[in-house]
């Protein structure tokens, strides 16, 4: 699963994208939907939990927490940005 990072999420995670291997590591359960993905990423990068609004897109469409995610999906983390 490829996760593209935008705005401040790129700074928090420290790279423009993230890859979650399809086989589980450390016995950790892999996220099946967007809600689980939020928790999964929040554990690895606690700074993400502080964001009041963080849109997640699955294959370029805005997704709610119930949207299923699969290993071949392209995910994007999109926080609001403010500069002008």
């Amino acid at each position, binding site marked *: 699963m490829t996760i593209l990072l935008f705005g401040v999420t*790129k700074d928090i995670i420290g790279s423009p994208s993230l890859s979650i291997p399809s086989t589980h590591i450390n016995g950790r359960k892999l996220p099946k939907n967007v809600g689980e993905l939020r928790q999964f990423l929040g554990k690895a990068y606690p700074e993400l939990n502080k*964001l009041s609004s963080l849109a997640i897109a699955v294959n370029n*469409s805005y997704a709610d927490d119930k949207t299923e995610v699969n290993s071949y999906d392209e995910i994007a983390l999109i926080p*609001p*940005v*403010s500069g002008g």
Partner: protein
Amino acid sequence: MIPSLSKYQRQINLESFGLDSQLKLVDSQVLIIGLGGLGVPVAQYLNAMGVGALGLMDNDTIALHNLHRQVLYTEAEVGQSKVQVAAAKLRKQNPQTSITVLPAYFTKDNALETIKDYDVIVDASDNFATRYLINDACVILNKPFVYGALHDFEGQVSVFNHNDGPTYRCLFPKMPQAEEIPNCDENGVLGVIPGIIGSLQALEVVKVLTGVGEVLSGKLLIYNGLSQENRLIQFNADPKNKRMQQLANSYGYAPCSMDLNLDATAFLALDHPKQVIDVRSTEEFEENHWEGAVNIPLPSLDEALDQIDFKTPIYLVCQSGKRSAQAAQQLVQTHPDAKIYSIGGGMNQISMLCH
């Protein structure tokens, strides 16, 4: 052809644009909120292309560190009002445009009154408080608004509240809190990036006004200047965000450029400041305080507004200047015209200077 329209010949010649679209532009009124990095290209292009009336709203002055991206302004104009300088130049660029100068910040108190006569609003601001306020005011009065925002080499563009389309809150329901996400270009910005994003906003304004092309509604464009990659994210309207009837009680913090900070040295030079408010805890206040200061701890500030005289300058102080800065931001939301100052460095700085 009507002689005054001959200057638009080259865009009228575009088959899918034509005289009809040009006449629609000439008949339109657009409000640009923020005359900084985004607002400058928006204003220049809309003015050149023949939008009939432009409202320019900002209360900021030109600073030297603005010039690398706000390319309408020059070094000789540092310190002058952005909207006044911009209006003078835009009038020369296109004398036919009716330009209204609004030298004020967009606040809860003036929001609805300001936008009501415009066809399209451009969000060219640089802070979340203003962006959420623009969204809410536009939803209440049913106005489309063209959004543009930046983070480093990245930009976002979308058209919100266009017909039945989604709003800013459909994408980002809750306003980020202070410190959560860099606000007000704290992160730095490469000069040309707002030029690109602002130009895309100008293009969307033209599409909304003329109906030419496909408006970027229900889609967020994310532009990456480093890779030259564009990405379109589709999203839907959440009906509850379209039903908003009134503005929120508070939009958190004030416009970035509003200077609420007063140097401790300048404070000490004042002749008996009448209203000094210490926003530290009662315990801290009892330990030491400025003679004549009134103690209103920051957490109870909102309930103690009746103890404050907003017609007299307000000097806010705390230990280091952090809490008083927050208090100043809080007060300016409800009283944007009051003279509110946060004493930089707080009691620490005052005691150091007094010894």
